[in-house]
């Protein structure tokens, strides 16, 4: 079992990276630039300098959280594509809570965890609606989460427009200084100027905890089994509906935690559109990262590199190339997964 599985994962990841490179080269060439020159620029702008590496970590931080969110859903056989909305609502909640008077009076080691908890609760709450619709009525969580994304868009606009924003802007007031998460350049001077913050540790802990939870906790293992065969789990009296709802809510919480990297560690306030795209980016991270913490972390770094690299090459080639690559990677991984699945399960009835 293990050998073909590892082989399968290696094939899928290699295929995806190769497809991404080919797509990149073709698009850059079509644009009239040399793929090698632009790739060099991309590298120089990311891992080429300590600042660039710091920026990659900064970009990868929210992606890792949303990637874990999608991963948690997938393990339970759910597709949470509501990361965008869950993150937007959590970011708004953190932006508002961080500005409350009493938070400013708290010491940093209380204020920061408190706001991280707010992010998790708000993200989870936004996932609660599709979770209930799924658990209670069997409604497809994909439709539910898509709709909640759009509702979040409207709600954030209405709340910011309705008085939560600083007058004449689309941003909330600054959060209390004690609620800021420290920049990494305070410890590692070489990263000076990059926006990487201690929020990256939140994301790392989240990834490790999620992978551990599925292996080592009772609920986690039950969720994995439900993801594989809900009917059988029902038969042995695992509370399937409740576990599914829990998994989707936890997934929303993980997506909400991405606001640590954007609001607490970077801007210090929430503004319209902050963190947009991370929700969908998380899907790419989860699919490429397979199902281990290390895989998720590497995948988040990969897409963080693409995002930061997009900015580095924007003068030569539109950075939107990177959105196309995200799509290509998602498709390549899924296609090669399906191929391998067919090869290994050929002849098995019902596979």
């Amino acid at each position, binding site marked *: 079992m293990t050998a073909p599985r590892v082989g399968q994962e290696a094939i899928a990841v290699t295929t995806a990276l190769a497809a991404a490179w080919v797509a990149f080269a073709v*698009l850059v060439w*079509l*644009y009239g630039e040399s793929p090698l020159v632009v790739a060099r620029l991309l590298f120089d702008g990311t891992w080429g300098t300590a600042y660039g590496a710091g920026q990659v970590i900064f970009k990868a931080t929210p992606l890792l959280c949303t990637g874990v969110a999608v991963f948690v859903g997938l393990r339970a056989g759910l*597709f949470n*594509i509501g990361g965008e909305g869950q993150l937007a609502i959590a970011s708004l909640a953190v932006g508002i809570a961080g500005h409350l008077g009493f938070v400013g009076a708290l010491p940093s080691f209380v204020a920061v965890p408190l706001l991280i908890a707010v992010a998790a609760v708000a993200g989870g709450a936004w996932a609660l*609606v599709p979770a209930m*619709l*799924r658990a*209670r*009525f*069997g*409604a*497809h969580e*994909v*439709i*539910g989460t*898509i*709709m*909640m994304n*759009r*509702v979040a*868009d*409207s*709600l954030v*606009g*209405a709340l910011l*427009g*309705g008085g939560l924003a600083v007058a004449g802007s689309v941003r909330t007031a600054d959060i209390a200084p004690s609620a800021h998460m420290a920049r990494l350049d305070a410890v590692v001077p070489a990263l000076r100027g990059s926006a990487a913050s201690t929020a990256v540790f939140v994301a790392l802990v989240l990834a490790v905890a999620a992978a551990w939870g599925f292996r080592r906790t009772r609920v986690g293992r039950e969720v994995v089994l439900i993801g594989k065969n809900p009917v059988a789990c029902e038969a042995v009296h695992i509370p399937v509906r409740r576990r599914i709802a829990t998994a989707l809510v936890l997934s929303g919480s993980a997506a909400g935690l991405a606001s640590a990297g954007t609001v607490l560690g970077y801007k210090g306030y929430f503004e319209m559109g902050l963190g947009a795209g991370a929700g*969908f980016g998380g*899907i790419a991270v989860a*699919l490429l990262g397979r199902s281990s913490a290390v895989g998720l972390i590497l995948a988040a770094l990969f897409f963080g590199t693409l995002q930061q690299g997009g900015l580095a090459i924007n003068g030569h080639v*539109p950075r*939107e*190339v*990177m*959105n*196309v*690559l*995200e*799509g*290509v990677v*998602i*498709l390549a991984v*899924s*296609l090669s997964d*399906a*191929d391998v*699945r*067919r090869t290994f399960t050929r002849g098995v009835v019902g596979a």
Partner: protein
Amino acid sequence: MSGAGQVVGTLATETVRVTVPYACAALAGVWSEKSGVVNIALEGMLLASALAAVVAEVATGSAVVGVMAAIAVGGGIGAAHAWLVRREVDAIVSGIALNLVAMGGTRFILRALYGSSSNSPAVPGFQGIFAGSSSLLALVVDTLTNPLTLLAVALLFVTRFALTETRLGIRVRAAGEDGAAAASLGLDVPRLRLAAVSLGGCIAGVGGAALAYDQHQFQSGMSGGRGFIALAAVIVSGWRPGRAVLACAAFALLDASQIVFQGQSRVSRDLVTALPYLATLASLAVIGSRSARRTS
């Protein structure tokens, strides 16, 4: 004409104008869902085909060629979606990836062709007979005689007829109801799905062209969630073409009322835009498990 009549007339005309892209995308969704393929790529179909219409019209000077290009691109995305699903890629994954590619790809092409990251050059599209006139009657006539409006109406009736009365339509529905049973009767289920999803994509392409010609240009991200509104309409209607278009018209009426009754506060405008999605969430509770049907 009296003030009230003027308002009602404008509102009705605006509603028709706004409905067209929604309705085309919704019909695409109906074809796809009826064949058993979940389609969340409607958004990307609208966006990419809107750009295709403008690019082709700029290149050839013909609005008709623009529509044909839009139909081709919409159909192409549909075919890609159906092919990926046939290769056992999850339909949701495929839809998300196609949307991402359409979003990034249109911006990329916009910059590559026109050196702008926000909009294309202006195109005339289909000029009405009374173009330039500001009277309500001229507006009504021009909207109702717009070739794409008429085409959309025709496509609604074609879809209804095809799905209930033709061999292809009935086979497509069989593939959607129970793929394994349909296959056991000797139907080529993957090919039926390819046909249905591609055909739907072509219809969505008409919607994309209507969207672009309505604004007389392509704007980055101009589909603006319309594909998801259409998806909402498809679900609320229980995959029935007539009702889906009616739902689209209802959602369009919300939009149109915001255009006509300007000067509302930002807040109420934002809340109104959420109504189609809230309606869909509410209907999910009712139709529930039916929406959970996945491709088989």
